């Protein structure tokens, strides 16, 4: 294993806690909005780290770019979907926690 | 000289091409359908003659030979069914074109024609196919087209269409599972190739059981017939005709193809008796139900359940040794039934259209203008009952001979009892014409003579089949897979 692969592995490893925290938030937070918050924030960072890590580890620039593209698409869609869910919840009359 | 391999190409491509034209230009529907229908009938006749002259042949698609490529087989069996399909297709199209638009329960007449042609093409593709997966796709094709045509009647017909769709989809899925097993064992999908390599072992038995179950469901064999009466009874007349005559026969055709082809080594007395008993039960149960029906079209629909039962008698009789007689007799009976049943549905459609109501008690009274339809009904009934010299008689005669030759007196009794039932319910229908009927508001609908004539043509065809019995026997023997 050379240095590049070590760096990649480290990045992937760094991504894992974000996923864990996001999942923990999903399970433990009190309402839809806070859960969305946990998922949309933490998981996206985790995914970014994993993608970049895998790309670096592969040693191919094209593959790295492809993985980053996947991450960007995921960011866009998760942002939109989170917004949609939150709006629908609001429209259905779910009040945010604590208000 | 055009090579005979052009025949199947025309039979496959023309209906699909015509369907596309009719879909794009609904205004040209009737001329395009009737024109291509005429060509298709002529081509089917030509194929029959070619098979009679030079025996069966096989055609490879795309120049690839079997296990890799797909093939078509044209033999006596497929040629007979192609001809049946073309006759019913053309007669049904004439009927539908001539129907009085006001009383026909077709929601959207523009879509009848593309669906009709698609069904025609799908059935032709099915009768030609020699590849198990190609048969699956063709089966789905036929199912969707049938569902569309049944649903055209709107209202409760759509609920019937839904039941039919579910039953037939389940049937094809079970069939496909069998195909997967066969492929996993023999790496071949071609029927002829499988027939050479199949060995009687567990995988083959399970695959055969699955495929048979799926096809029995599609053929509406008792007790899997629950979906048929509503679907066939409520569809528009021409659709009922093609469904009862050809679509059901198509599933039966596959059963025969498989059991006398790849699965022939498995056809022991046990399996054969089981299938025969199912057939016998269908004959009796369907006959009884038909006797109890109050609506003309439902009576005919139950009769389909009953009549197809005869076809299954081929298995015990063939397993007992009278392969050739049983085979020609059963196939003859199914083809004669197809023509007669289509004639019955078209005649009934014309009569019901004229009266505006389908209950048997209502159909009497003044029959001026429906005479041709009733005559067609009577001739078709004669063929269905099996009066000489009709095709139905010849088929039953051969089956009875096969039963006598093998000492299968039980099957002979079923044959006789079923005939009695058939005579009973058809007599009930014919009797209705003699009695005073109901007055319908607005009087009787004037009908185009083409309605009765299309039914009469089919009925005469079914009767003439009996006169052409020697030719039919020669055709069915031509590479039927059993004798060849």
């Amino acid at each position, binding site marked *: 294993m050379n240095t590049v692969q070590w760096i990649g592995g480290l990045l992937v490893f760094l991504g894992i806690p974000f996923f864990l925290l996001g999942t923990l938030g999903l399970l433990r937070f009190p309402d839809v909005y806070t859960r969305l918050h946990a998922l949309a924030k933490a998981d996206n960072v985790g995914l970014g780290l994993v993608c970049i890590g895998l790309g670096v580890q592969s040693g191919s620039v094209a593959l790295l770019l492809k993985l980053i593209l996947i991450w960007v698409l995921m960011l866009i869609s998760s942002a939109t979907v989170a917004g949609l869910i939150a709006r629908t919840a609001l429209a259905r009359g779910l009040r945010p926690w604590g208000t | 000289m055009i090579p005979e391999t052009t025949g199947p190409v025309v039979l496959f491509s023309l209906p699909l091409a015509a369907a596309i034209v009719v879909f794009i230009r609904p205004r040209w529907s009737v001329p395009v359908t009737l024109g291509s229908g005429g060509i298709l009938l002529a081509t089917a006749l030509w194929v029959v003659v070619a098979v009679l002259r030079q025996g069966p042949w096989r055609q490879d698609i795309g120049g690839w030979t079997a296990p*890799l490529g797909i093939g078509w087989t044209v033999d006596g069996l497929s040629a007979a069914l192609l001809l049946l399909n073309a006759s019913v297709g053309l007669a049904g199209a004439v009927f539908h074109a001539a129907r009085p638009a006001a*009383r*026909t*329960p*077709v*929601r959207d007449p523009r879509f009848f024609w593309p669906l009709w042609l698609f069904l025609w093409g799908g059935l032709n593709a099915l009768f030609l196919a020699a590849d198990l*997966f190609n048969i*699956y*796709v063709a089966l*789905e094709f036929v*199912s*969707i087209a049938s*569902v*569309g045509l049944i*649903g055209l*009647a*709107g*209202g*409760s*017909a*759509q*609920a019937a*269409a*839904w039941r039919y*769709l*579910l039953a037939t*989809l*389940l049937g094809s*899925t079970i069939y*496909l*599972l069998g195909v*997967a*097993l066969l*492929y*996993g064992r023999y*790496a071949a999908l071609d029927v002829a190739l499988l027939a050479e390599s199949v060995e009687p072992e567990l995988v083959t038995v399970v695959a055969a059981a699955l495929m048979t179950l799926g096809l029995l469901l599609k053929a509406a064999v008792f007790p899997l017939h629950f979906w048929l009466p509503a679907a066939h*009874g*409520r*569809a*528009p007349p021409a659709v009922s005709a093609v469904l009862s005559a050809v679509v059901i026969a198509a599933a039966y055709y596959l059963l025969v193809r498989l059991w006398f082809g790849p699965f022939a080594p498995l056809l022991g007395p046990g399996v054969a008796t089981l299938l025969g008993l199912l057939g016998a039960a269908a004959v009796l149960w369907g006959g009884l139900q038909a006797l109890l029906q109050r*609506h003309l*079209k439902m009576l005919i629909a139950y009769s389909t359940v009953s009549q197809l039962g005869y076809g299954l008698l081929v298995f015990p009789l063939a397993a007992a040794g009278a392969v050739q007689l049983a085979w020609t007799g059963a196939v003859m009976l199914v083809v004669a039934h197809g023509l007669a049943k289509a004639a019955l549905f078209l005649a009934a459609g014309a009569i*019901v*259209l004229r009266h*505006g*109501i*389908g*209950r048997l008690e209502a159909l009497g009274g003044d029959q001026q203008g429906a005479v041709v339809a009733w005559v067609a009904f009577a001739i078709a009934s004669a063929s269905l009952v099996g009066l000489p010299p009709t095709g139905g008689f010849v088929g039953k005669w051969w089956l009875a001979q096969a039963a006598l030759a093998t000492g299968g007196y039980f099957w002979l009794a079923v044959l006789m009892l079923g005939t009695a039932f058939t005579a009973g319910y058809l007599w009930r229908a014919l009797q209705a014409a003699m009695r005073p009927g109901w007055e319908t508001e607005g009087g009787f609908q004037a009908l185009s003579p083409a309605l009765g004539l299309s039914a009469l043509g089919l009925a005469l065809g079914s009767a003439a089949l009996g006169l052409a019995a020697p030719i039919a026997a020669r055709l069915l023997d031509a590479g039927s897979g059993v004798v060849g």
Partner: protein
Amino acid sequence: MTVYLSLSGVLFLIGLHGFFTARSLLRRLLALNVLTTAVFLLFVVLARLAEPLDPVPHAIVLTGIVVTVSTTAVALALVVRIAGRVRDEDDDAAAGPRGDAG
């Protein structure tokens, strides 16, 4: 591969069970789709077991998926129509007496 072979069998059983016990029209359709997927899975497992990898089942399953989505779409359109029959009474009246004249 044993895992996927078993999976195919279990899915087939679930689909069959669902198909025969479900009352809801839509649920039956879902069960039928599960059933079809199980058959496709068997095909692909067989392709994977073959040496070298067999592309024919892959093509078969691709064809099958498209056929299945077609049948599903037709079935769904029918479900929506028959469920809506109560509302579409006018259309039916225009279509003529049903059952009798059919």
